């Protein structure tokens, strides 16, 4: 019995299954459709935030291409679906395209310096946005493009909110599982090593460029998935959904969570999605608040939420030990 409990709480597989079971009941306990929508958004943003975490946190590359990659995924899938291709095929094609572009970006940024990564990803972003806004026949331009309703496996209608929720739940947990497994694997450790001391990694025969490209490709896969989900959730796509502003918010979330930390990221991501829904009312000052938060985090809590969590755990341990001593 205890073994089962430990499996659920300590292994990645167990925790994922545990989360899945717990989150199954969400559609039954939420008060209204709006809240269900927010829940779906939380899951979607978890995926793209995690993608940004892989690129930025594990690998140390300051990329602003996250939003653009989401857009590529979303638009590709939408265009193919509108052309009549089955949902599953469109999704796979879209994912292939965004991963490929991510890989390309990774290769282009082989020169280490932060400015190059920034430059190339900014350039990529601008290019994608210009294309999205101007290829009117293909994308509907700045006024947007509606997406045909789809059926998963030809049977389940994704226009049904609840069905979409479960679909998103499975997808997001799958990708989170992948992210967590990578972190502890040789791949993840290597990426962190390169981030910590690139020359040290090179001196061990590690091909830093190769791993950075892998990180970028993975990150873009995650972004692509999130973009696709976002598109089919709303049934409508517009270039403003993938603005530079959104790209910067991705960076903000990763910093808030603590660069590279998975646990911190989950907390930060959920927090951000909920808060941004709330802040939609105060659109006038929302930007300012984001800006102030990120500056505050970097100045006063640079380790982000992960560091805060770690401190809390440490304090609890100390208190327990002190308590044990005094008795």
């Amino acid at each position: 019995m205890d073994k089962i409990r430990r499996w659920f709480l300590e292994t990645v597989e167990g925790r994922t299954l545990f989360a899945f079971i717990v989150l199954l009941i969400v559609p039954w306990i939420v008060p209204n459709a709006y809240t269900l929508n927010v829940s779906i958004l939380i899951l979607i943003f978890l995926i793209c935030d995690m993608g940004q975490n892989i690129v930025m946190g594990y690998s140390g590359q300051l990329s602003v291409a996250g939003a653009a990659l989401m857009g590529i995924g979303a638009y590709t899938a939408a265009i193919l679906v509108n052309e009549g291709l089955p949902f599953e095929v469109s999704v796979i094609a879209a994912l292939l395209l965004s991963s490929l572009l991510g890989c390309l970006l990774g290769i282009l940024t082989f020169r280490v310096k932060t400015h190059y990564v920034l430059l190339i990803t900014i350039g990529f972003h601008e290019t994608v946005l210009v294309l999205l806004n101007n290829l009117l026949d293909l994308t509907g331009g700045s006024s947007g493009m509606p997406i045909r309703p789809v059926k998963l496996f030809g049977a389940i209608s994704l226009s049904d909110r609840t069905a979409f929720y479960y679909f998103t739940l499975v997808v997001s947990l799958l990708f989170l599982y992948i992210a967590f497994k990578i972190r502890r694997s040789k791949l993840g450790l290597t990426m962190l090593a390169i981030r910590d001391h690139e020359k040290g990694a090179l001196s061990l025969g590690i091909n830093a460029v190769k791993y950075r490209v892998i990180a970028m490709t993975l990150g873009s896969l995650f972004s692509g998935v999130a973009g696709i989900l976002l598109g089919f959730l709303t049934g409508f796509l517009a270039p403003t959904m993938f603005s530079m502003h959104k790209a910067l918010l991705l960076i903000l979330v990763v910093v808030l969570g603590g660069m590279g930390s998975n646990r911190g990221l989950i907390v930060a991501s959920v927090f951000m999605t909920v808060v941004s829904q709330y802040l939609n009312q105060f659109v006038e000052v929302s930007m300012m608040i984001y800006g102030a938060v990120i500056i505050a985090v970097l100045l006063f809590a640079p380790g982000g939420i992960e560091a805060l969590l770690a401190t809390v755990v440490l304090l609890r341990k100390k208190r327990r030990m002190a308590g044990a001593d005094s008795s």
Partner: protein
Amino acid sequence: MEAILETFNLTKRFKGLTAVDRLDLRVNRSEIHGLIGPNGSGKSTTINLLTGFLSPSEGEIRLEGKNVQFLSAHRRARLGLVRTFQEPSVFASLTVEENLRIAASHAEGKGTAFEVGETLALIGLLPKKNMAAGNLSYGEQKLLDVARVSLLQPSVLLLDEPGAGLSGPEKEKLLVLIKKLKKRGCAILFSEHDVGFVMGVCDRITVLNFGSKICEGTPEEVRRNPQVIEAYLGGSYEHAVG
């Protein structure tokens, strides 16, 4: 004795400054080779050139007879030409054990789990194996660097001032690691300021001054060389030799 690492006419020029000037270096198999010279004589630059962290302006570098001067740093490491840095290069957010395991896992089957444990014990960090490497002391980090790189089963190891900042007992642990590597057939070249340390340990020594080689030979030969004495006049050399 055959050479495992050689340079021919190795030169590195920066804007207006020749840091390394037509250097012909020769390191033999299984030998412990010292690289000494006053500050600014080009020791670090030489190591950077040999391992691919800098590209030469002129000259050739040969590892086991093959030209490597066009290969990137990580490729040279994979071929067995490895190095450490003057400042610690540990992966701060990984644990001590993870630092070693990462090295072993990239060594293409050459490093094993047993070796990791053994190496940990050798450098005295077994009790700290789950500590984040960034929390180790300066000397411990430098030892970890050498330990890490030894797991790659290198054929030539270049150490950039490995003793700098190390305490007495730490220097001894370093020596143990070096000797163990030598027994395995690895050649070791290290640059050092502590000339006494170098004299006592090395089979052969190369002396640099202003980027050029002024002497190469056994410790005895170097000790007696007039150019070397002149270069170190009044410096630590005289003090060390006594």
